[in-house]
């Protein structure tokens, strides 16, 4: 039980995907200008991450693992991307039907979740760290929540920028990158929380 909690907190705060590994920066910068759409993006990513963890774990262990499966480890990337792509398609359909405004606000970044390296990274971490099924689900969910939290914090900060006299050269992406860097620095404060 304690190891589950450790994995969860590690994925959310200490080894945050955005600010520790710097994975998934594309959507982090792209969709973090509005709180509402960034929360939607976070939720979509969390769903895809959790489902990916749930589906890829058995696929890896019973299909492609060298020890327990058919010994096809070179298919790892292809199969993971396939699962992620199918899930993203599903999320896209779901959002288009039930949250049309969010679907429009996310625009191209929604299908781009497919190529979001945070999700593939998470699936690969599960394999590398040899998590069991429950651990990997908790890890996927925690990673998604961490992603959501950071992207919403970022959107909150960037919304405040709209009222600030930002010099023209810093407007947009430069300020977003500076902010991301400073956020990452502050998240380094968590790094001593969990003993290695």
């Amino acid at each position: 039980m304690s190891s589950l909690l450790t994995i969860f907190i590690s994925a959310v705060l200490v080894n945050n995907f955005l600010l520790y590994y710097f994975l998934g920066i594309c959507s982090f910068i792209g969709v973090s200008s509005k709180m509402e759409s960034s929360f939607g993006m976070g939720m979509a990513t969390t769903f895809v991450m959790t489902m990916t963890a749930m589906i890829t774990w058995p696929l890896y262990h019973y299909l492609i693992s060298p020890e327990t499966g058919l010994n096809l480890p070179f298919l790892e990337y292809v199969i993971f991307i396939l699962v992620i792509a199918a899930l993203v398609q599903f999320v896209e359909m779901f959002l288009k039907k039930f949250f049309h405004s969010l679907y429009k606000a996310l625009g191209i970044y929604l299908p781009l979740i497919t190529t979001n390296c945070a999700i593939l990274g998470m699936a690969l971490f599960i394999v590398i760290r040899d998590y069991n099924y429950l651990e990997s689900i908790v890890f996927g969910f925690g990673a998604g929540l961490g992603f959501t939290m950071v992207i919403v914090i970022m959107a909150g900060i960037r919304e405040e920028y709209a009222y600030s006299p930002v010099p023209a050269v810093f407007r947009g992406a430069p300020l977003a990158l500076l902010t991301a860097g400073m956020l990452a620095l502050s998240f380094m404060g968590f790094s001593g929380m969990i003993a290695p």
Partner: protein
Amino acid sequence: MEILQSILVLVGMGLISGILLAVAYGKLKVDEDPVIEKITEVLPGLNCGACGYASCGEYASAIFQKLTDIGLCRAGGDALNEKISEITGLASEAAEVFKAVIHCGVKERKILAEYDGPRDCLSASLTGAGLACRYGCFGYGDCVNACPFGALKVTSGVPELDFNLCIGCGLCVDACPRDLIEIKKVLKDKIVYVACSNIQSAKLTRTVCSVGCIGCKICEKRAVEGAFKVENFLARAEAVEEEIDIPAIKCPTACIHEMSNLDAGDSAL
């Protein structure tokens, strides 16, 4: 053996996810009217925003929901309106034509100091770039860069406007840091405007520019009633139906300009 296994695994995975997605699509399908797509196809797709909608797609769905008139696209003009009215069956009205005019007519700038800074108007406007005229055009072409239609061209004087290419979307208006550009309605295939924005008194305007409006009010007196209005030592042309004979006004600094479809360009008379 391995190759066969991996092919089977991939094909199986693809089939399973494909079937699952097809089932999900059946449940979650959103019906979109093909008319919207048709309208979007005939729109220019430039997303210039002159119609008041963020993109051509949004404008198309607004037309479809009958939230707006169909004559708002300035890039397409009458030909486009006919196409849209064919598709939707809505009546098309004659499109109003708008063009940008630059309220400055400088040919040779009087300079107080050399300017070494970045060659763009926005940076130049921070310091004034050493120009004697505090209201005039810098000529670095921020408006030229803003124009998605290539209607503006940098010259040694004020950027030159191609009357036929300009559709009056107004993107250059936002780009000009000195607010020299205005979108004006074309009346009888031409636009009359005063190419100056200097609101200083006659003496001060004269010292910085030879073609600036000095606010002498001659145009008010000699042209048709209401065609010009002088305020703050600066004349502005108003929209009037009557013909304005510019040479007959004899503007002392020749800052009344006319643009028309015929000569496709800016001509000082």
